[in-house]
C-alpha cells in the first residue's frame, strides 16, 4: 500500500492545482478559446516548459533511476497521424462546450458536482464506444 502513497500525494497536488489554476472552470476555458485572457495559455506553456526542463535533467543525469532503483525510459508515443488528429478533434469538440478535460472532470467530481459526474459517465461510455469500434476507425 505504501508504494502507492507517492501517486496519491502527486495526484492530490495535481487536483488541487487544477482547481487553483481555474483550469477546471468552464468560464476560463471559454475565455481561453476566445483568446480573451493569457492565463490558461500561460498555465499550459509554463507547464510544458517546466516538464521539458525536468525531463532533460533526468536525461542528462548520470543516475537515470527511479526512487526504487528501476531504470527510467522516456515514454515514446506510437507512430501515427490520423488517430491523433481525428481523436483530438473529437475530444476538442466536447471540451469546447463542456469546458472540462479529463483531469478537471475528476477534480470537479471530487467537489461533488453532479454535472461533472454526468460528464464522467458520458466519457466512460465514449471510451467504451471507441473500444468497441476501434477496428473500424481510420488510424
Amino acid at each position, binding site marked *: 500500500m505504501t508504494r502507492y502513497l507517492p501517486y496519491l500525494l502527486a495526484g492530490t497536488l495535481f487536483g488541487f492545482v487544477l482547481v487553483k489554476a481555474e483550469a477546471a472552470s468552464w468560464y476560463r476555458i471559454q475565455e481561453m478559446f476566445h483568446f480573451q485572457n493569457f492565463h490558461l495559455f500561460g498555465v499550459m506553456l509554463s507547464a510544458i516548459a517546466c516538464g521539458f526542463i525536468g525531463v532533460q535533467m533526468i536525461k542528462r543525469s548520470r543516475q537515470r533511476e527511479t526512487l526504487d532503483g528501476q531504470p527510467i525510459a522516456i515514454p515514446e508515443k506510437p507512430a501515427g497521424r490520423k488517430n491523433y488528429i481525428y481523436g483530438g478533434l473529437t475530444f476538442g469538440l466536447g471540451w469546447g462546450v463542456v469546458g472540462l478535460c479529463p483531469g478537471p472532470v475528476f477534480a470537479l467530481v471530487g467537489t461533488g458536482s453532479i454535472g461533472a459526474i454526468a460528464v464522467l459517465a458520458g466519457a466512460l461510455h*465514449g471510451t467504451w464506444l471507441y473500444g468497441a469500434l476501434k477496428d473500424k476507425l481510420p488510424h
Partner: protein
Amino acid sequence: METLLAGLRAPWPWYVAGPLIGLMVPLMLLIGNRSFGISSNLRHLCAITQPRQVAVDFFRYDWKEHTWSLVFVIGTMLGGYLAGVVFANPQPVQLTPAALAMLQSWGFAVPGREFAPPELFDPNVRNLTFLFAAGVLVGFGTRYAGGCTSGHAITGLSTLQLGSLYAVLGIFAGGLFSSWVLAPLLLR
C-alpha cells in the same frame, strides 16, 4: 497563518500553477518510470467494469498493473475536494471584460462562485443529457487520440512527441470550433 490560508483559498497565477502541473511529468518518471496522463484511467475503469459476456478486446488486459494511475486519479478527486470545497475561493472567477460581455450576450448570468455556469451544470434532465453527450465526445476522442491535455499537451509536448503535436492541433481546432460555433448555438 492568515496569509497562508488566504493563499490556499485564492486562485493561483499561471506562473505558479503551470510549473507545478509540468512538474508532474518528471515526478511520475522519478517515482516509478510512469508516463503522466489522466484519460487512460477511463479505459481502466471500463476494463474493471466490463461484463464477461460483452468482452471487447480493447478492455481485456490486466488493469491491476495500472493501479498506480487509478490511485493518482483518486488523489486528483481528493485535491479537487480540498481546493474546491475545504479551501474554496470565496470570490467569483474574475473574468476579463471581453469574456463577461460575450457570456452575457449568450444569455449567461455574471459568474458566481461555481466553477461552471448553473445554466449548464444545474442538475436537470436537459443539462445532464447535454453534459453526458459532450462527455461521450471527450471519452471517445481522448481514447482515439490516445491521450488528453495531460498525456499529449503536457507529457507529449514536453518530451517532443510528433503524435502529441498532431493531437494538440486537433484538440485546439475542435475546441475553437465548438466554443465559437457550437457553444453559443447550443447554450443560448
